[in-house]
């Protein structure tokens, strides 16, 4: 059957460079000397550490528990000894550290106890919790916790489940190899997702430069005998693998600004995510490894099944990096980010390590002024006006940039790719976005501080009032008491003609009298308490001291001698 396909706006056709890494099958990686597993690998809250240095962990044991409403667990990738729970450099452009669990493998690679789940008989909420604790996140690169996406929309079911096997970014072939070699298991994961989302149809979008993958997936679908699932070859054009772009190509639905695809009955997942869902549900294995393409400046580009936490240089060494290698890029040449060091760990977001050198990726030509040619607007797959965003970002006019929908930018790099002035446009957008986020954080902090300040003032006022009320009540009570005493005692003798005038005076005197009496009583009660059980020796000593005190006190009590001599 021929399916009608749609087109998204813009896009570019960079050289794909995919053949090199698809000649050899997926390879395993020998255990490294140590694994560095960052606790924060996915979108959402920071997982809290569940292990301590010195603990023995099994393969697949949870070492970071999901914390907060959107968070995903982290697991030990192999069995071994926890050496440290300490900050380590993260695979992030900033080169900053984040809390990581450092594991020394014991070489046995022993699994702990594995819980499997039958997704057909388990309620959806429990399944979602299970996937959260299995650490399943989107493996396409956005690392969004999958359980949060596995909720059907308001109608309780979904029309179309889109599975993203487009893999449009040059050099990267991990999804391609996954579909070629593990299509059957991946399909089981897709069926589980389809069950959870109650999706009517499933469309697996694969770019037509991967005919083997399309054939493998189609064969797996035929073997499963399921209906309503289709592997669709789509035209190769970057960025067809963007979620919104793929949805547009397959269904013709254009998700507008500020809306979600589920509002239109569509949800999109990566093929790698489908495979890890299969592993989690049917084998009980949490997400502890992923496929990573090693390509670029290496002798044997290839895909590896890599444990999360493996140092990148350990992995790249297997592929034979060339001598002039000077950088690792996580991701592809269009969207990838340069790593701050060679030994940063592979994380859930690492789909590719692009090994680079000065010769392979020469420094970009110097940035020239924007000539307003409009090429970037023609290439933008999100239908934005990149040149406008550029001017506003450059002049730090962030409000205007947001008005031009800066946050709809997917940072695909098409605009920078076509720019004849070699302007690093995406860098400007990233700068603007992070500035806007920082401002929002500051604004929130300021608002919270204002609320707290106002509350403190309010509380102080209230306390003052309460104190005044309490005092007034107490004074009134004593006054009443005194008045009652006075009424019983001096009433018979008092003059009936002038009761009003001397009353306040008498009342005041009575109050003072009462207060002094109270003070006397308190003084009597506050006798030293540590003189009960004393030995005769100590008592004698105290008596001695008291006697001396009296001698000292006597001259002081006598009037001072005249000063003038």
């Amino acid at each position, binding site marked *: 059957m021929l399916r009608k396909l749609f087109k998204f706006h813009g896009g570019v056709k960079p050289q794909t460079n995919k053949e090199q890494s698809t000649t050899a099958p997926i390879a395993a990686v020998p255990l490294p000397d140590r694994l560095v597993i960052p606790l924060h690998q996915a979108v959402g809250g920071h997982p809290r550490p569940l292990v301590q240095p010195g603990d023995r962990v099994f393969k697949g044991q949870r070492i970071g528990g999901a914390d907060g409403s959107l968070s995903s667990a982290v697991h030990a990738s192999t069995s071994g000894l926890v050496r440290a729970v300490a900050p380590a450099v993260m695979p992030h452009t900033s080169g900053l550290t984040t809390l990581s669990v450092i594991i020394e493998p014991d070489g046995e690679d022993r699994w702990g106890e594995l819980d499997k789940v039958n997704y057909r008989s388990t309620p959806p909420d429990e399944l979602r919790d299970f996937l959260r604790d299995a650490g399943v996140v989107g493996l396409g690169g956005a690392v969004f916790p999958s359980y949060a996406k596995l909720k059907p929309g308001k109608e309780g079911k979904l029309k179309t489940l889109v599975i993203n096997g487009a893999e449009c970014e040059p050099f990267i072939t991990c999804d391609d190899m996954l579909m070629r070699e593990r299509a059957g298991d991946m399909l089981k994961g897709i069926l589980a997702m389809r069950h959870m989302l109650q999706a009517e149809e499933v469309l697996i979008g694969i770019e037509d430069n991967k005919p083997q993958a399309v054939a493998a997936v189609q064969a797996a679908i035929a073997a499963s005998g399921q209906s309503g699932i289709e592997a669709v070859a789509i035209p190769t054009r970057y960025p067809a693998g963007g979620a919104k772009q793929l949805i547009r190509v397959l269904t013709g639905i254009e998700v507008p600004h500020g809306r979600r695809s589920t509002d239109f009955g569509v949800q999109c997942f990566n093929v790698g995510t489908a495979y890890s869902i299969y592993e989690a549900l049917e084998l009980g294995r949490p997400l502890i490894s992923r496929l990573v393409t090693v390509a670029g400046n290496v002798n044997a580009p290839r895909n590896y099944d890599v444990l999360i936490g493996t140092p990148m240089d350990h992995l790249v060494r297997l592929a034979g990096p060339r001598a002039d290698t000077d950088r690792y890029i996580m991701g592809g040449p269009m969207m990838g980010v340069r790593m701050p060091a060679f030994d940063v760990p592979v994380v859930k977001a690492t789909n590719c390590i692009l090994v680079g050198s000065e010769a392979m990726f020469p420094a970009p030509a110097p940035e020239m002024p924007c000539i307003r040619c409009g090429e970037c607007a023609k290439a933008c797959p999100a239908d934005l006006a990149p040149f406008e965003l550029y001017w506003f970002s450059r002049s730090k006019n962030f409000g205007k940039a947001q008005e031009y929908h800066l946050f709809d930018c997917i940072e695909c790099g098409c605009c920078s790719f076509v720019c004849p002035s070699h302007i690093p446009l995406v860098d400007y957008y990233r*700068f603007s976005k992070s500035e806007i986020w920082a401002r929002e954080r500051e604004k929130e*902090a*300021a608002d919270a501080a*204002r609320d707290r300040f106002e509350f403190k003032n309010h509380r102080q006022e209230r306390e003052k009032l309460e104190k005044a009320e309490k005092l007034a009540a107490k004074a009134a009570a004593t006054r009443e008491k005194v008045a009652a005493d006075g009424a019983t005692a001096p009433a018979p003798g008092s003059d009936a003609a002038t009761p009003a005038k001397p009353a306040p005076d008498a009342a005041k005197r009575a109050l003072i009298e009462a207060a002094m009496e109270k003070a006397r009583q308190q003084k009597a009660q506050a006798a030293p308490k540590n003189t009960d059980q004393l030995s005769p020796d100590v008592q004698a000593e105290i008596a001695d001291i008291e006697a001396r005190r009296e001698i000292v006190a006597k001259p002081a009590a006598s009037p001072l001698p005249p000063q003038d001599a």
Partner: protein
Amino acid sequence: MFTALFVMTGIALVLGAGLGFASIKFKVEGDPLVDKIDAILPQTQCGQCGFPGCRPYATAIAGGEAEINQCPPGGEEGIRKLADLLGREFKPLSEEHGVEKPKSVAIIDENTCIGCTLCIQACPVDAIVGAAKQMHTIVASECTGCELCLAPCPVDCITMEPIAETVDTWKWRYPVFQIAPAALDTARQEA
């Protein structure tokens, strides 16, 4: 002629009644300008501007009693925003009111703290917890870095720690190359 007079008087009465009604119905409580200024100020309530808190300073700016460059925590950016809002000229931060510092939080040295509660009373945002003769500690997430707790502490056990950048708060750098002035280069060559 009388018709014209009647018509004009009638119109005047109707419009006057309308305006009078509107002025009661749509009466604005407080000064909206003060709110707008207050929204720009960083809400540290530190008093470095010479006013007891951000709102009094906002009121003073709106009343023309204060300059816009008296808020060190707001920094240059805050001054720019105020200048934009009020249509005034930008001016650098006034030195007598302090200097812009990196964002910090107060840290109590818990071994030295004697539990006097003076800092708790000074904190404008209730970010210090503790009780008399009990150790105090600072709720770092609520601390605005106003430094108001430093002065009252009798044992000087509070220090300000700049907030370190994390992966979550890290920002992409401004991609525009800042070209160094030529004079600096030649000076370096001569040296």
